[in-house]
């Protein structure tokens, strides 16, 4: 029987008790932080159990073990300074995102521990960027601050609902704008918030000058303002 602190060999790691793997993983992480050579396999096995077997104990170890790394990521992200929640909130959101995104059937996409930790870092990035997008979505001209619940970061569901509503509106707009140049100008101006000069620069074949963009945009706005369906949608 493996005793307290006994090391699991590479061959029997899949059968090793979690506490043994956890000890090995802690030591491997300490060696890594010191810059010493290390073996990732105990940590990778703990991750595998947490993700593929949905082992709650293994997951709790993963969160405890990599919390400092995620905290460092959050602190160093450029969007963190603009976020309205404290770092612990973003650390928790990062692990939530990782747990929901890395399903057992996806685990084979990650060949080693560095790949998993890179994905964990991506999760830190994406939860912060989601919140930043949500904050920036509040139109400046209304002078309305985002309500506190939004400033904490939108849920995945809220983001999906917002995009769905936008998709529906866009389908209606496409029916009102049969001209391709008008559709493109509407998409670039309203969906991507592109300035007319940028629109002209990117599509000189359609809009040789910025004045052409102004002309097309005027037609678009006039047509959409007169459309009862658009007005109903925006009410």
């Amino acid at each position, binding site marked *: 029987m493996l005793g307290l602190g006994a090391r699991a060999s590479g061959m029997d790691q899949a059968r090793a008790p979690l506490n043994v793997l956890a000890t090995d993983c802690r030591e491997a992480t300490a060696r890594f932080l010191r810059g010493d050579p290390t073996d990732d396999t105990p940590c990778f096995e703990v991750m595998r159990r947490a993700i593929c077997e949905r082992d709650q104990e293994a997951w709790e170890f993963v969160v405890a073990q990599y919390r400092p790394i995620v905290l460092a990521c959050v602190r160093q992200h450029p969007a963190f300074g603009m976020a309205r929640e404290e770092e612990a909130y973003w650390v928790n959101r990062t692990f939530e995102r990782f747990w929901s995104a890395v399903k057992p059937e996806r685990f084979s996409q990650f060949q080693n521990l560095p790949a998993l930790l890179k994905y964990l870092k991506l999760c830190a990035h994406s939860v912060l960027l989601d919140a930043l997008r949500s904050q920036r979505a509040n139109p400046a001209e209304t002078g309305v601050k985002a309500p506190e619940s939004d400033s904490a970061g939108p849920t995945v569901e809220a983001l999906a609902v917002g995009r769905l509503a936008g998709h529906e509106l866009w389908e209606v707009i496409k029916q009102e704008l049969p001209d391709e140049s008008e559709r493109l100008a509407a998409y670039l101006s*309203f969906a*991507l*918030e592109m300035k007319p000069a940028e629109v002209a620069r990117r599509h000189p074949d359609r809009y040789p000058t910025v004045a052409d963009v102004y002309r097309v945009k005027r037609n678009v706005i006039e047509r959409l303002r007169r459309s009862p369906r658009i007005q109903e949608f925006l009410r």
Partner: protein
Amino acid sequence: MSCSGPGAIAPEDLVAFAEGEADQAIAAHVARCPQCAAEARQYVQAQGRLRGALRRFDCPSPHTIGEYELGLLADAERVRVAQHLLECPLCTDELRTLRQFLATDTTPQPSPLDRLRRVVATLWEPPRQAAYAGLRGAEDAAARVYRAGSTTLTISPTPSGRRGQVALVGLIWDEGESTGAPTPGEAQLIAPTGATRSVPIDELGNFSFDEVAPGVYRLEVQRADQMIVIEDLPVGG
């Protein structure tokens, strides 16, 4: 109500004004023409509402852009995101931010404990006829001697005041030390339950744990830049 100066500006000039890009002549006309000012306000409002409803509706989420960057998307989705990135400066900007972030070394600084070099000690079975007089506990059959490189660690159980328990007396020294006396440190005894006890190591290398219940423990002895670990230390029984 009609324009105060028909022909002074073109209809699309009001769009330029709404964008904040009109020249002085247009701005001056709008300032004195109520009809044109009202129309410009309507363009601003309409554009604001359309932007509010459509803003980035077609943009992939930051997470999807991240999976695109890591090569984790299915082919069809990868192509869709790649095509979108050609057109969307907002998503391109986010991708740039992600790349810089992923390239940044966010490894946390090791804690003082992490910086210690961990060495697992092995039980040493001395030859029977070896004269190791002076080795504390050598004459005691229950004493255990461990080696970790040039460091020797002896653990000797002694009777404790409490029935059923023992006291552990330890001595650590390094052959590399010129005086044979190691620097002070700390010893930790970790029970199978995870309960931990810590005692100081004096400048002569002595330490002791009182009233230790029988069991198999983990002993960690920290001295200078090294932590020596005895993984399965049997006590009593």
